[in-house]
């Protein structure tokens, strides 16, 4: 039956090269316009339905956002967050089949100062975004990143979180909401727009000094993320929001997951990439876009004219080896072209991650990282990877002390420098800088760096190490660091007289 074989082959070949007239897998009538996942072709209307349903399903499944709650949408202007904005709009519109019932607000943080854009450029982007936000009718805020310099130190504290609501609470809240507002639903109030507060040049300079003090792009991006997160949380708190919606999509999260591992943030993965993140206590961040791939979002935005404003970020137009974040991104996207299930596989892994339950004492403020506000991963027993890294770092340093080349500092944009654990500590005083427990004085510069490290998680320590000096850090971080150090010192002094802490001390010794 050789002939039949040959015929088969011909048929297969024809099937391999899909033609333009391929039909939608769902309605099987309209011709397809977009390929999602391998082989799933959708037409425009089915794609729209699928996209909108997914957003509502995500919020419905997780039941984190209660009816009537104030939710702050963090919109950068990029495709993902703008798509999120349009989905919220769609969900709140009168014609929506199953209406969303929270009241949204928008915040945009203008990072032009950190990225090095001119004042005119920033103004132009801001006015573009203003037009987009105004069209939604939601209250909105546009803040320059420079405001992060004036934050109070309460930002990096975990505010007391309300007790975990029981599963029945959601249903009760829905009922309550239905009773109170079924007749007189108030549309989101239009508030007077707040124009962009004038940014002082000195502030921009300070911010640029801070960004400039990070020697590698990896550290700079990490620092920018941290500052942005602090400003977002602070804004949500002062404006009375209880939830913060972030626009991370599934491709972005897959990249973030691998990046986080390479940056030594393994312990914080679950919080960094999960659907909801409660590290700040009273402000819970949610990521409703985490089920969409970047491609789905780009196509949706294009087909249904979702306005987006391209905002340059730190890694725009950089080569693919400029930073760990950038390298991971190109690794994932390259792999994705040949193996279309790459992103979803990584993403499914991130879904299964959970934060290990710590004892109640870990809820104490002093046990949180000063920068990323995650539970410190440095207070571990002696037989751990972390301690092993420290020891190997010490050993390699004592060895290289004699033959050290003074000019041998890590190159400015080498991704390895942030990941490598030894060798690149520039100050001789940094020899025992990783010792998480040491208190010590606080007069000279080197010791101050050392002290700051004891308050940070492993990954943030690496970021700080890549900075030439910590003096440019915003005041709220430095003053909070000093406060925590004083408290730790005081606790050390009176530890003999304390019952509970004495116990803890014994535990640590053992």
């Amino acid at each position: 039956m050789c002939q039949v074989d040959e015929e088969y082959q011909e048929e297969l070949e024809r099937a391999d090269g899909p033609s333009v007239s391929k039909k939608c897998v769902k309605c099987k009538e309209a011709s397809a316009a977009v390929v999602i996942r391998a082989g799933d072709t959708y037409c425009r209307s089915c794609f729209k339905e699928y996209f909108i349903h997914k957003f509502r399903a995500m919020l419905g499944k997780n039941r984190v956002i209660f009816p009537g709650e104030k939710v702050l949408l963090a919109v950068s202007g990029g495709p993902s967050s703008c798509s999120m904005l349009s989905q919220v709009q769609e969900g709140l519109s009168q014609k929506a089949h199953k209406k969303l019932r929270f009241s949204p607000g928008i915040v945009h943080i203008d990072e032009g100062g950190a990225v090095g854009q001119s004042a005119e450029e920033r103004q132009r982007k801001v006015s573009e975004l203003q037009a987009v936000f105004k069209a939604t009718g939601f209250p909105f805020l546009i803040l320059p990143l420079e405001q992060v310099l004036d934050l109070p130190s309460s930002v990096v504290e975990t505010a007391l979180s309300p007790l975990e609501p029981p599963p029945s609470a959601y249903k009760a809240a829905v009922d309550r909401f239905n009773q109170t507002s079924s007749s007189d639903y108030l549309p989101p109030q239009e508030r007077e727009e707040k124009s962009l507060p004038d940014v002082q040049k000195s502030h921009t300079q300070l911010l640029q000094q801070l960004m400039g003090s990070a020697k590698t792009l990896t550290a700079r991006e990490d620092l920018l993320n941290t500052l942005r997160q602090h400003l977002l949380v602070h804004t949500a708190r002062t404006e009375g929001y209880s939830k913060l919606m972030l626009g991370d999509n599934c491709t972005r999260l897959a990249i973030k997951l691998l990046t986080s591992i390479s940056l030594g943030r393994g312990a914080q993965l679950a919080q960094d990439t999960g659907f909801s993140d409660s590290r700040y206590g009273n402000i819970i961040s949610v990521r409703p876009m985490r089920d969409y791939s970047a491609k789905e979002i780009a196509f949706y935005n294009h087909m249904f004219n979702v306005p987006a404003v391209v905002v340059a970020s730190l890694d725009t137009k950089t080569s693919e080896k400029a930073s760990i974040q950038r390298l991971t991104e190109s690794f994932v996207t390259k792999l994705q072209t040949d193996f279309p299930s790459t992103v979803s596989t990584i993403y499914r892994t991130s879904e299964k991650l959970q934060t290990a339950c710590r004892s109640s004492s870990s809820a104490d403020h002093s046990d949180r990282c000063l920068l990323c506000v995650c539970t410190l991963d440095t207070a571990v027993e002696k037989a751990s990877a972390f301690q092993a890294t420290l020891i190997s770092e010490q050993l390699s340093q004592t060895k290289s002390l004699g033959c050290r080349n003074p000019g041998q500092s890590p190159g400015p944009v080498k991704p390895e420098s942030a990941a490598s654990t030894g060798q690149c500590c520039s100050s001789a005083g940094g020899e025992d800088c990783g010792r998480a427990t040491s208190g010590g004085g606080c007069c000279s510069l080197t010791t101050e760096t050392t002290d700051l490290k004891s308050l940070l998680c492993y990954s943030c320590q690496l970021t700080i190490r890549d900075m030439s000096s910590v003096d440019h850090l915003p005041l709220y971080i430095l003053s909070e660091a000093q406060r925590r150090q004083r408290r730790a010192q005081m606790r050390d002094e009176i530890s003999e007289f304390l019952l509970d802490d004495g116990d803890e001390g014994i535990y640590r010794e053992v």
Partner: protein
Amino acid sequence: MAAPIAVHLEFGGGAELLFNGVKEHHVTLPSQSEPWDMKQLLVWIQRNLLKERPELFVQGDSVRPGILVLINDADWELMNQNACACLTAAGLDCSVGLKPAH
């Protein structure tokens, strides 16, 4: 012998930054002996329109992974990317580079 073709190209999602920030381009492809296809169009774009950093736009003879391409408002993955997609219809509408920038 293919006649000159008028093509409407659009770059978005950050890809336009490589083209001096210009999003829309109305161009006419010169006539050539064999019919135009996407592979040749990309080479032509690279030679005539691209302003900087070609490595961020093309890789090998296709676009860099992560850049999405639409032909006549449809995903180019629906077409056989290199062999097919001959640009025959006049006024073809190409959106190249809906790159999800971040």
